[in-house]
């Protein structure tokens, strides 16, 4: 079963992270790197991505005369996706265990765990 592990945070949180001492950021990156390595070796790794910061985010709604309507102003409290991991694991517990490890490596930030939808034909 495939699960996506979502790491989210606010703009203020991202700025605080960028202000960490360089060696702390390096240590954090090294642990995340190690987790990716372990998941690759266990065959559970599907994909991982980091997203560019909230300043480059836009929300698009429909279009007017063929031009997309974009907006880049967000409330301070808005949570942005910072990055995600997709894993293919036998059960939810295993997905939670991986999320726990990522959380522990990242100042216990909560990680949202969601299963991918499997489409069924309904009669």
């Amino acid at each position, binding site marked *: 079963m495939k699960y996506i592990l979502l790491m989210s945070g606010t703009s203020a949180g991202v700025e605080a992270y960028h202000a960490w001492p360089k060696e702390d950021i390096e240590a954090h990156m090294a642990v995340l790197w190690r987790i990716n390595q372990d998941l690759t070796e266990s065959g559970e790794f599907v994909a991982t991505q*980091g997203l560019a910061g909230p300043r480059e985010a836009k929300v698009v*709604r429909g*279009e007017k005369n063929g031009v*997309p309507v974009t907006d880049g102003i967000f409330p301070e409290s808005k949570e942005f996706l910072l990055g995600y991991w997709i894993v293919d694991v036998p059960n939810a517990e295993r997905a939670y265990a991986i999320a*726990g490890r990522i*959380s522990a490596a990242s100042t216990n930030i909560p990680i949202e765990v969601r299963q991918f939808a499997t489409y069924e034909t309904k009669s």
Partner: protein
Amino acid sequence: MKYILMMNTMRAGHGVPEWPQKDLRTHIAFMMSLNKELRESGELVSAEGLSFPEQARLVRAGKNGAPVTDGVFPESKEFLAGYWIVDVDSAERAYAIAAKASAAPGPGGAPLNMPIEVRPIMSGPPLEML
């Protein structure tokens, strides 16, 4: 350049929309045709739908490293319903695709004009962090 287009349209407690069957089918057919178009233009990297929020859990590391799970979310929380990752020449092209997805047909076939969040994907950690 890679962009992620996110449909943050789900709320806790909501499942499959209660639309007439015909409208649901039209909506799904539209999404499948959009994916086909993006696959044919070579711009689609991946597209996935996520299961409904009642299966979502927040996980934190507890003491001794065991995961601590929580399934209670504030009512205002937005849940990711699905996403597309596209590889396109410019942000404008990503916005145009997002606008198309935004206008997917809803009840009665009217465009939903749902908000789609568009974000560049980093190909690696920022250089200053390496």
